[in-house]
């Protein structure tokens, strides 16, 4: 088994310390940070993400895998930053007003950072105005909103409206996601993109930042 496959396997098992050790070892052995990230950490996360989607693993397994990913990123980040001159884009991220569930949002953050995108994490219970104010102040490419509840996801409409009212249409992309969110809902509120999971959210975000 190659060391990168081993990293991916340990990550899927949520073994943060093993991941950390092997990431350091992989760097010493001359693997590039980008390669370790793509073929070790991110590949492990996408396996877990796929299994989660198919109900083969549940929230605890995803959480400990994400924790292992973070442990690996701690080692990789300084190396990645020194080799990549600048971030590939900037995202303002948070859960919508009234929603305090941040497991999904935190996963998205990890995957975004894995793609080299800078994340301004506003945390939970974020008012539409705060999303938009921050996006303007930080000159962000994307506003990304998350919600777990059908009671709170309707707040995303207010974020879209606030962004439009403040003249951000066509300048800042609004992405939405979370368990109850669907493409239909995205279309109905006029948001720009819907992402069904953290991995595809990061792919979409990267495309937006690079376009």
């Amino acid at each position, binding site marked *: 088994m190659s060391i990168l496959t081993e990293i991916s396997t340990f990550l899927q098992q*949520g073994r943060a310390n093993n991941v950390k050790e092997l990431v350091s070892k992989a760097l010493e052995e001359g693997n590039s940070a980008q390669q370790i990230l793509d073929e070790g950490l991110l590949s492990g996360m996408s396996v877990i993400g796929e299994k989660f989607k198919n109900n083969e693993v549940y929230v*605890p397994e995803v*959480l*400990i895998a994400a924790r292992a990913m973070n442990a690996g990123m701690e080692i990789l980040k300084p190396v990645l930053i020194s080799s990549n001159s600048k971030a590939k884009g900037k995202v303002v991220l948070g859960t919508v007003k009234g929603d*305090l569930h941040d497991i999904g949002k935190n996963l998205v953050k990890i995957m975004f950072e894995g793609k080299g995108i800078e994340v301004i994490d506003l945390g939970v219970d974020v008012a539409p105005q705060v999303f938009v104010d921050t996006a303007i102040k930080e000159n962000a490419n994307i506003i990304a909103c998350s919600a777990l509840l*059908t009671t709170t996801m309707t707040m995303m409409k207010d974020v879209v409206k606030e962004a439009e009212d403040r003249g951000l249409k066509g300048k800042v992309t609004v992405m939405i996601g979370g368990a*109850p969110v669907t493409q239909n809902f995205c279309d*109905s509120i006029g948001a720009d993109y819907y992402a069904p999971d953290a991995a595809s959210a990061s792919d979409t975000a990267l495309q937006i930042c690079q376009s």
Partner: protein
Amino acid sequence: MLRLKLIACKALYREFCLLTAACNNFVDVTYLKQGLHDTPKLLNQALQHEIDKIDSGDDIYSYYPRFGRDFYAILLGYGLCSNGIIGLRSKKYQLVTPKTDDCIGLLLGSSRRYKDYFAQHPGTYWYTPSWIENAYTPSEEMKNRLLKEYTEKYGEDNAKYLVETELMLKNYKRAAFVAWDELPFIEHEQYAKRAAEYFGWEYDRIKGETGMLEDFIGGRWDERFLVIPPGKMIEADYEGNIIRTAQ
């Protein structure tokens, strides 16, 4: 007297038991286990499976239509429940379901009342007798049990981390116990109260209302309920009605 088939979640077990027993209508009930909303696809499949069996007349949990007596409607004792009811249809019967996000609105007697409370108090963990009996609800005892289970599965370090994040203790601020006068359970109330004290949350005892569920099984289906004709499908509504019939 209407003959009704009710498929309901065990999160409403005691409440529906109480009301169906006293209801003027004949209500034939099947309960599905609590917690399926965590996997909405599975909830959806389980409900459609039950409906299909009832449609074809070979559901082992339901009255078999005989002697000219058949069900007037299939009632779904669910809210939107993480979109778990979206796409459901019966080929043979009309489906009836309350327009509410989840069971808390039903227990409070109105979807509006639930939304208003929710808007004023984000970060409320809801406790009800049936939830306490059928589901995981945060408390010192449950936390320790979860910690033990996770330690065996994922090791001590991960277990501690999981209990902190999964309980989301950092974000919740309040425990609300929904109390029905008709179902006084001091033991459960005290459970919720102790949990609030243990986690340092505010505690609120909210008087529930039986009216919405009574009207539901009583056949008084006004604008609070969605009646879907046979062959039609439930779809999400984002204009404030929560659900509607797909055209």
